[in-house]
């Protein structure tokens, strides 16, 4: 198991290779990428920020939970921080397990837990020049720039 917060592009092939093992028959990879739109607004990029020490601790906790629940410790997750352009990867999760069900379900467990619990925050940049912090519940959006803070 390995969790990391990084500021460089994610190397997907390296993560898949990292979990490989002769005893595994299934490998899954989940990659989150920056979309060009969000709720109808054209997006040009996303800033990812984290409460670093706690985010890393939560990621490690989630991997430990997944490892116990799905009986494989061949799981790595990397989350990228900083400003990402459309199509760039923000998160990659690779899991290898003896059987496919564990590999599929561990992957899903990790991404759902990351989205629910890990203190990472994102601010979308829109093509119209505005920016806003958004959250994974699709809930409140706080515009922060270039105008002063207003509810939207």
């Amino acid at each position, binding site marked *: 198991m390995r969790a990391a917060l990084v500021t460089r592009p994610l190397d997907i092939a390296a993560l898949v290779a990292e979990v490989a093992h002769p005893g595994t028959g299934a490998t899954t990879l989940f990659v*989150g990428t920056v979309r060009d739109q969000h709720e109808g607004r054209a997006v040009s990029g996303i800033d*990812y*920020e*984290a*409460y670093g*020490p*706690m*985010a890393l*601790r939560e990621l490690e906790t989630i991997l430990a939970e997944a490892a116990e629940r799905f009986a494989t410790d061949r799981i790595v997750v990397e*989350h990228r921080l900083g400003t990402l352009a459309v199509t760039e990867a*923000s*998160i990659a999760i690779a899991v290898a397990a003896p059987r496919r069900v564990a590999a599929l379900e561990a992957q899903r467990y990790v*991404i759902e837990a*990351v*989205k*629910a*619990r*890990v*203190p*990472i*925050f*994102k*601010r979308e940049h829109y093509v119209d020049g505005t920016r806003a*912090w*958004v*959250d*994974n*519940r699709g*809930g*409140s959006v*706080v515009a*922060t720039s270039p105008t002063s*803070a*207003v*509810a939207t």
Partner: protein
Amino acid sequence: MTTTVLLFASWADAFGPSLAVELPEGARVADLLDVIGSRAAGRPLPKPMVAVNQRYATPDQVIQVGDEVAIIPPVAGG
């Protein structure tokens, strides 16, 4: 006691990356949220969670001198 509270995202935009908060001895997370909430009154800030020593805290958790306390806005990882 004076507790330094870490802030992120929209809360950091509003108050900077940390905020000194005066709390009585024995104060709980709920008391901190009351103080923080009053400072945020009128601003469009999302309701946060609180972490103490890098773990999510319940409202009744007592804050100790020296604890690392953070206001966690809605998360958006992934």
